[in-house]
C-alpha cells in the first residue's frame, strides 16, 4: 500500500473483508451441496411430479346380454365437462360455483360438494362437473377457456339402459364412486379413484370387477398453468368383460307387463329354471329408470332422484330379494315335505281333521272352509288351513324350525345380486322380539307358524327356490343371472382377462343343496300341487290343457286375513312349476295388497306361462283366452262379499 496509513490498520481491515467475502460464498456452496447432492433426488422427484400428469382415458364397461344374445345394456360415448385440479392455485373455488352453476346448469350444491372433494386429491386428478354435456355446454366451455382454463371437455362412455325401467332392479346402475367407498381398503386395492364409474346396484355391482374396463391414460407434461406441453406416452383403454346372462328378455317383458297390469301395480314375478337355478326373469314393480343415475348432476336429475327416494311405493327396492312377506298358504309345501320327513304324518296315514278351524285356549282360528278329514293331497289342493294347523302342532316349533333350516328359509339364497335379505322365521327369540309383552312361545304361535302367517316372513326368491326345489325332488339350486363371462383379449397377450361360467358367490354352500325326499312322498306332494291347477283346486282358473302346472296359491295377511280394508288388503301369491312331473320352468308371482292368490297372482303367472309356451312349443297356449278373461275381471271386492263360499275355494 503506497499511501500513508496512520489512523488505522487498513491492511487488516481489507483482509477482514476478503475473509468475509469468501465466507459468504462458502455458505452458499454448503447450501448448494445440501440441496443438490444430499437432497437432489428428493427434489427432482417432486419437480417431476408437478409437471407430469396422468390423464385417464375411460374404458367402456362390458356389455350385458340376455341368454339369446339381445343387448340389455351397453355403453355409448357422451361428452363430459371435467374440472382438472391443474392450475386451481390461487383460485377461490367458492367464487367459481355461481359462474359454473349458471353457465353449465349444474346444481350449485353439487358443485360445492365436488370442490370439497377435489381439495383432498393428488394433483393429477380431475373431477367430472357435468355428465352428458350438450353442444351448448361444450361451446360455453370453449368460449370461457381463458376464464376457466381448468375446464375440459372429454369423451366418456355412458351406460345405456332400457329407458322404460325394464330389468332395472336386476341390471342395477352405475355411478360415481362415493367418498365413503373410496375410503374402504377394497377400493384402494382395486386402484379406484375419485370420479371412477362403478356399479352401484344389481348385476352392475355384483360383477363390477368383470364389467369395469381398465382405463387407459395419457402421460403428459404440463406447465405451471396446467396447459399440456407434451405427451410422453399413451396407454389405450381396455374395455370390460361382457356378461351373458340367463335372462330371457321376452319372459322378462311378459313378467313386467303382468305387474304393470295388476290391480296395485306392486309386486314380484320371478321365472327360474328349476334344473339349475338360472333366472329367466325377475321383475319387481314399481320400477325405475336406471339412466337417471347418470343425470344426477343436473337439477332435474337430482329432483327425480329425490322423488324416487321419497316415493312411498319404494320403486328402488328390489322386492324379490329385499322385501319380506308372509308367504301365506304357499308355506304349506315345505310343511308337507317336513311333515312326512319328520313322521308327523305318513304316506299311509296322512289324514288330519280340518274341523273348520281350531280352538286353542279360548281362541278359535278358522279354516276358510270345512274339508272334513282330508289326506295330504287334498289338503294341498284345497289349501286346508285346519289340516296344517294340526300338522304344525304335531311337528311342534322344533319341527318347523328344522324345516326352515332344511330349506334355507332363514338364509339368503345366494342370488348374484347385492343386498339380498334373509327371511324371518319362527323361533322363541323372534317372538320375544315381536311381542315383548307376551314373550313365551304358545301353541297358538305354532298354529300361526304352520300356514305362513305372523312368524313366517320371507323373500319371494327364497320361497321360489324352496318350491322349485321340492318340484325337483329336493334339489335346491342357487338362483343366478350369469351364464357366462366372456374373455377379453387372447390368452398369452398382455391384458388378457379370462372368461368363466357361473360360480356361486359363496362357494362353501352346496349347489344344489339336496333335501332328501323319497320318491313316493315327492309324488304325493306334486299330485297335491298338480291338483291345485288341474283338479279343481284353488288355482283351477289357470289350467292349461296338455301343459300341467303344479302350483300353490297363497294369501298373506297384512292386517287380518280376509279383512279387506282398502290399501292393506292381503298379498296375493302363486308359486308354481311346470310340467308338474318333469319341471322345466318355475314361476312365482306376488301382487301386493291385491287380495286372494287365486284371483291375482295365479293369472299373472299364467300370463308368463303363455309366453313361455309360445316360445318353446311354437303354438298358441291352450285356454289362453280363458285366462285373459279372468285376468281382466273387475270389481273383485263385490264378488268376495257376495260369495263367501267361493272365498274358501280360492284361498
Amino acid at each position, binding site marked *: 500500500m503506497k499511501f500513508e496509513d496512520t489512523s*488505522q490498520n487498513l491492511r487488516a481491515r481489507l483482509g477482514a473483508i476478503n475473509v468475509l467475502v469468501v465466507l459468504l460464498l462458502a455458505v452458499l456452496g454448503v447450501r*448448494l451441496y445440501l*440441496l443438490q447432492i444430499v437432497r437432489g433426488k428428493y427434489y427432482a422427484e417432486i419437480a417431476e411430479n408437478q409437471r407430469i400428469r396422468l390423464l385417464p382415458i375411460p374404458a367402456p364397461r362390458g356389455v350385458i346380454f340376455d341368454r339369446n344374445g339381445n343387448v340389455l345394456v351397453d355403453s355409448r360415448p357422451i361428452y363430459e365437462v371435467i374440472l382438472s385440479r391443474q392450475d386451481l392455485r390461487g383460485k377461490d373455488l367458492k367464487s367459481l360455483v355461481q359462474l359454473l352453476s349458471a353457465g353449465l346448469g349444474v346444481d350449485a350444491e353439487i358443485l360445492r360438494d365436488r370442490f370439497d372433494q377435489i381439495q383432498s386429491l393428488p394433483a393429477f386428478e380431475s373431477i367430472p362437473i357435468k355428465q352428458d354435456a350438450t353442444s351448448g355446454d361444450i361451446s360455453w366451455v370453449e368460449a370461457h377457456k381463458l376464464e376457466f382454463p381448468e375446464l375440459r371437455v372429454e369423451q366418456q362412455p355412458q351406460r345405456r339402459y332400457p329407458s322404460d325401467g325394464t330389468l332395472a332392479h336386476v341390471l342395477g346402475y352405475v355411478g360415481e364412486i362415493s367418498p365413503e367407498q373410496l375410503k374402504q381398503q377394497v377400493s384402494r386395492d382395486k386402484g379406484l379413484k375419485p370420479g371412477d364409474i362403478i356399479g352401484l346396484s344389481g348385476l352392475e355391482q355384483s360383477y363390477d370387477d368383470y364389467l369395469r374396463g381398465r382405463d387407459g391414460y395419457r402421460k403428459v407434461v404440463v406447465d405451471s398453468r396446467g396447459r399440456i406441453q407434451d405427451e410422453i406416452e399413451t396407454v389405450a383403454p381396455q374395455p370390460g368383460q361382457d356378461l351373458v346372462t340367463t335372462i330371457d328378455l321376452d319372459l322378462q317383458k311378459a313378467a313386467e307387463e303382468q305387474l304393470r297390469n295388476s290391480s296395485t301395480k306392486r309386486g314380484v314375478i320371478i321365472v327360474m329354471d328349476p334344473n339349475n337355478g338360472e333366472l329367466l326373469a325377475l321383475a319387481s314393480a314399481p320400477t325405475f329408470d336406471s339412466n337417471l343415475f347418470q343425470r344426477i348432476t343436473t337439477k332435474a336429475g337430482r329432483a327425480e332422484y329425490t322423488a324416487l327416494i321419497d316415493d312411498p311405493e319404494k320403486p328402488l327396492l328390489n322386492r324379490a330379494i329385499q322385501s319380506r312377506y308372509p308367504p301365506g298358504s304357499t308355506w304349506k309345501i315345505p310343511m308337507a315335505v317336513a311333515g312326512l320327513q319328520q313322521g308327523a304324518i305318513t304316506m299311509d296315514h296322512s289324514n288330519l281333521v280340518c274341523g273348520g278351524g281350531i280352538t286353542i285356549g279360548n281362541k278359535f282360528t278358522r279354516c276358510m272352509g270345512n274339508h272334513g278329514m282330508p289326506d295330504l293331497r287334498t289338503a294341498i289342493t284345497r289349501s286346508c288351513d285346519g289340516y296344517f294347523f294340526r300338522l304344525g302342532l304335531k311337528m311342534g316349533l322344533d319341527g318347523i324350525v328344522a324345516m326352515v333350516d332344511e330349506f334355507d328359509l332363514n338364509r339368503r339364497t345366494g342370488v348374484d345380486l347385492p343386498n339380498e335379505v334373509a327371511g324371518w322365521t319362527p323361533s322363541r327369540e323372534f317372538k320375544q322380539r315381536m311381542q315383548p309383552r307376551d314373550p313365551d312361545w304358545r301353541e297358538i304361535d305354532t298354529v300361526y307358524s304352520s300356514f305362513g302367517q305372523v312368524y313366517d316372513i320371507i323373500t319371494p326368491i327364497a320361497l321360489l327356490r324352496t318350491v322349485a326345489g321340492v318340484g325337483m325332488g329336493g334339489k335346491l339350486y342357487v338362483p343366478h343371472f350369469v351364464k357366462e363371462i366372456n374373455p377379453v383379449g387372447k390368452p398369452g397377450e398382455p391384458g388378457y382377462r379370462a372368461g368363466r361360467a357361473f360360480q356361486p358367490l359363496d362357494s362353501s354352500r352346496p349347489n344344489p343343496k339336496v333335501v332328501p325326499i323319497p320318491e313316493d312322498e315327492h309324488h304325493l306332494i306334486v299330485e297335491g300341487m298338480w291338483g291345485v291347477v288341474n283338479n279343481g283346486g284353488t288355482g283351477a282358473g289357470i289350467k292349461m290343457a296338455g301343459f300341467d302346472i303344479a302350483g300353490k296359491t297363497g294369501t298373506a295377511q297384512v292386517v287380518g286375513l280376509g279383512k279387506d280394508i282398502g290399501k292393506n288388503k292381503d298379498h296375493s301369491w302363486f308359486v308354481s312349476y311346470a310340467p308338474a312331473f318333469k319341471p322345466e320352468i318355475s314361476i312365482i308371482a306376488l301382487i301386493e295388497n291385491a287380495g286372494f292368490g287365486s284371483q291375482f297372482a295365479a293369472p299373472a303367472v299364467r300370463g308368463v306361462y303363455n309366453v313361455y309356451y309360445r316360445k318353446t312349443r311354437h303354438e298358441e297356449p291352450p285356454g289362453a283366452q280363458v285366462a285373459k278373461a279372468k285376468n281382466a275381471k273387475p270389481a273383485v271386492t263385490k264378488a268376495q262379499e257376495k260369495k263367501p263360499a267361493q272365498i274358501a275355494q280360492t284361498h
Partner: protein
Amino acid sequence: MVAIFEKRTLRDFDWLLAFLAIGIVAFGALQIRNAQPTETFWVKQLIGLGVAFVAMLAIAFSDYRRLLNIAPAFYVFGIALLVLVLIPGIGLKLNGHRSWIRVPGLGQFQPSEFVKVTTAMMLARYFGKHRHTALKLKELAVGGFILGLPIALILLEHDAGSVLTYIPILLVVLFLSGIQMRLVIAVIILSVVAIPAAYWVGVKTHLVKNYQQERINVILDPQNADKRGFGYHTWQSILTVGEGGIFGARASSEHSQSSLKYLPEPHSDFIFAVTAENSGFVGCILLLLGYTILLSRLIAGARRAPDRPGMLVIMAVVGGLAFQIFINVGMALGILPVIGVPLPLMSAGLASLVATFIAIGFAISVRLRRFVN
C-alpha cells in the same frame, strides 16, 4: 513516449479480471438461453456484453483520478436521472416498480444501477482525503447523506431490493475509513441480539403483520410453508436447484422448470436456479469460484492501489458486488427471502451489466496507475 505508454498499458492491463468477467457473462448468456429458449434475451445480453466491454475499456484507459475529481458532477447527474424516473411519461413502470427510463432506440434501462457507481465514486472521493484520525461524526453524517439521497429517491420507486444493495457500499467505505473497531463490534453484537428479539416482540405484539411473518416462515421452513402462495417462488427455486443434482437435470430442456414456467423470472432474478438445474453442482461451484477469484482479484487490486480514493472505489465496488451475489444466490437457494435483485454478470439486463463492467473498469484503471505517483 506514446508507444512506451501503450506497451506498458497493455502489459499491466488486468486481463484476468476482464476475461473472468467476460467468461461469467458468456456463461450467463448460455443460462439465459436455457431459461428462455424462445426469447431473445440471450442475444441482447451478448450485445450488451459488447457495449459493456467498450464502456469498461473507456473507463480503464481513463485516469480514474480525473474521473474522481469530477465525481460530484456524475453524482448530480445520477440523482437527476433518479428524479427523471419518477416523472410519469419518462419513467417506465415494470413489475410494479417505476424504475426504468425508456431510451428511444435502445429500449429501457434502470438508472439505479448506474447511480450505484456514481455514488460509490462520490463516497470514494469524499472519504479519500489523507487520513490521520479516526472517523469523525461529521464525516459519518456526510457519508450518510451522500448515500441517503439516492436511496430516498429509489424508495420512491418502491424498489426496496435495489436500496438494499446500496447499503454495503457505504458500510465498506466507512469500515475502511477508520471507523472505530469497537463501534463495528458493537453494531454487530447489537444486530445479532436485537434483530431476533425485535422480531419476537413484533410477532407477539402483532406489529409484524401476518404476511411478513409468512415470508420469514418460508425461509425457516420452506417444506411446510404455503407452497402455493408466499412460499411459491422460494419452493419452486429450491426444487429447481435440487433437481440439478451433480451434473445437471436429466429432464430435457423443454421440460425444465423454467420453460414450463414453474420458476418465475428465470432469466433475471432466478438465473442462478436455472444455472443449477442445467449445470448442476459442478457448474454452480465453478461459478461461485469464478466470483470468488474475481472479488479476491479486485481486493488484491485495492491493496496495491496508489492512493486512498482508488482503494476505496474498488472496495466499494467489491462490497456492492459481494453483497448482491450473496442476496441473489441466497434467495435462489431458499435461505433468504425473495428480493428482486439481479445476479451481477449473470442476470439478463443491460443496465446492471454495463454498470458492473464500468465498476470493474475503475478497478483496472486503478491498477494500471499503481506505479504512477
